[in-house]
């Protein structure tokens, strides 16, 4: 009993770290750039496949892929925001109109990225073995690669939070999240800051993909599944709250792990139940303002 409880908690934390990372990325894109990026999961997939390809073709250590995947997805995200979403933003008559059109455009992005991935890599499931041995913690057994993923996710999450609080660009991001127009009038180059946010959001998804690929099988259409979970985490933690997404990720991970241990096929249903409950009881989320 105690061991199975420990198993649930450890599994939940391992899963939650990845959820937290992806959700912080989406929160940056939606909370600041106001783009509800349906293609967010595709950046996870890109990160995962680049890592897999690098490892299986060239023998590059998956953890080293961080420095390859990071810049690639950052540049893709940055360019998408500067071209597609900036023009949508300037031509939209109002904020809600922009949120609508940008979400629809991101649906398009989802299929474009997914189809390109299918052409390059085919539709098969892929996996590789990296640090795939068991660690025994008080009776609970889990793969070493999952612990690596959790540690990296936590370190990246905390580093990003410090970046937001401590640096000038971080302050500009927080100001832009509250009121982009006023931030612009106070001297912040708003188009640049939004593109930076979108790029950084993509980086978090991409890096989560790197870690995911070490632990789970990957396939080109995997993005949507993670996007759905991420949306729930963002709402749970509170829109615009980076710490909220971080905490929310772990909470959802724990819930998922608990439900899965009882009835695996009900995990997603449980997420959605919580999601709907939350929309009714506390639509702002845990740390939302």
């Amino acid at each position, binding site marked *: 009993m105690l061991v199975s409880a420990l198993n649930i908690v450890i599994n939940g934390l391992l899963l939650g770290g990845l959820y937290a990372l992806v959700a912080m990325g989406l929160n940056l894109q939606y909370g600041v750039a106001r783009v509800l990026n349906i293609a967010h999961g595709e950046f996870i997939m890109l990160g995962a496949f680049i890592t897999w390809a690098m490892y299986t073709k060239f023998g590059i250590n998956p953890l080293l892929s961080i420095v390859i995947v990071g810049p690639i997805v950052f540049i893709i995200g940055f360019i998408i925001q500067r071209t597609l979403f900036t023009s949508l933003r300037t031509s939209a008559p109002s904020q809600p109109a922009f949120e609508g059109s940008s979400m629809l455009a991101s649906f398009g992005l989802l299929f474009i990225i997914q189809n390109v991935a299918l052409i390059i890599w085919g539709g098969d499931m892929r996996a590789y073995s990296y640090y795939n041995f068991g660690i025994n913690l008080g009776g609970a057994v889990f793969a070493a690669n999952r612990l690596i993923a959790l540690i990296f996710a936590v370190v990246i999450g905390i580093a990003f939070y410090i970046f937001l609080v401590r640096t*000038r660009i971080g302050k500009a991001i927080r100001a832009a999240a509250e009121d982009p*127009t006023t931030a612009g*009038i*106070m*001297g912040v*180059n708003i188009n640049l800051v939004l593109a930076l946010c979108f790029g950084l959001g993509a980086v978090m998804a991409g890096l989560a993909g790197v870690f995911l690929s070490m632990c789970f099988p990957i396939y080109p259409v995997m993005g949507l599944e993670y996007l759905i979970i991420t949306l729930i985490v963002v709402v749970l933690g509170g829109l615009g709250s980076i710490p909220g997404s971080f905490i929310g990720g772990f909470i959802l991970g724990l819930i998922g792990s608990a439900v899965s241990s009882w009835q695996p096929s009900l995990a997603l249903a449980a997420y959605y139940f919580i999601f709907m409950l939350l929309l009714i009881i506390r639509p702002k989320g845990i740390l939302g303002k």
Partner: protein
Amino acid sequence: MSILEGEGVTKYFGGLAAVSDVDFHVDQSEIVGLIGPNGAGKTTLFNTISAAIAPRPGVIRFKGKRITGLKPYQVCRMGIARTFQSVKVFNNMPVFENVRLGSFFGTATRMSSAESAKEAEELLDFVGLSAMNTTLAGDLTLVNQKRLEVARALATKPELLLIDELMAGLNNTEVAQAMKLVTSIRDKGITIFMIEHVMKAIMGVCDRIMVLHHGVKIAEGTPQQVATSQTVVEVYLGE
């Protein structure tokens, strides 16, 4: 010499001219008032100057350089700062950080962290908010939020400050304090262009006053001239 000039500045919203063919100028070290009934286009005119919206047609020049078509952050860095009619402080950031944002991004040259901290402390002291450094801006009273907006705008080291209704909703003592604040900003060498409804204040501090009505400039002159102008009296009191 004029620090700010506008020629034929016009802005339509739908079919309605919010500002219509307005020529204006503000001279170095002047305090110029902009008055007019609600909906006269005063804030819209300010928005065209701070590049929040683009005039069409019309040209605005700052220190002889055309600023029409520039981005808001560029105009800010050239030396034009502003406050807002409906207060727009960053609610979730402490008072001190609000001011620092102006000095980090709004100044023409990059400012070191230590310089900007010192500057922010001085400015908060100048507007009388030094005791509230760490308070979240959203928790301040309206009067203090307006003062904070002034400090934040000054942190960008402007040569021209646009003040949009600093005194609305203030009591008599607070209005007197705000008038003193405005003159002491000018004494720092900063030119001021201000929208104000409180007549006592506008008559007391301005060197010159412009009157807008339905987006059209209907009068301009010294406070004395404007106060005795037949057209202005008709607009304000009805015919």
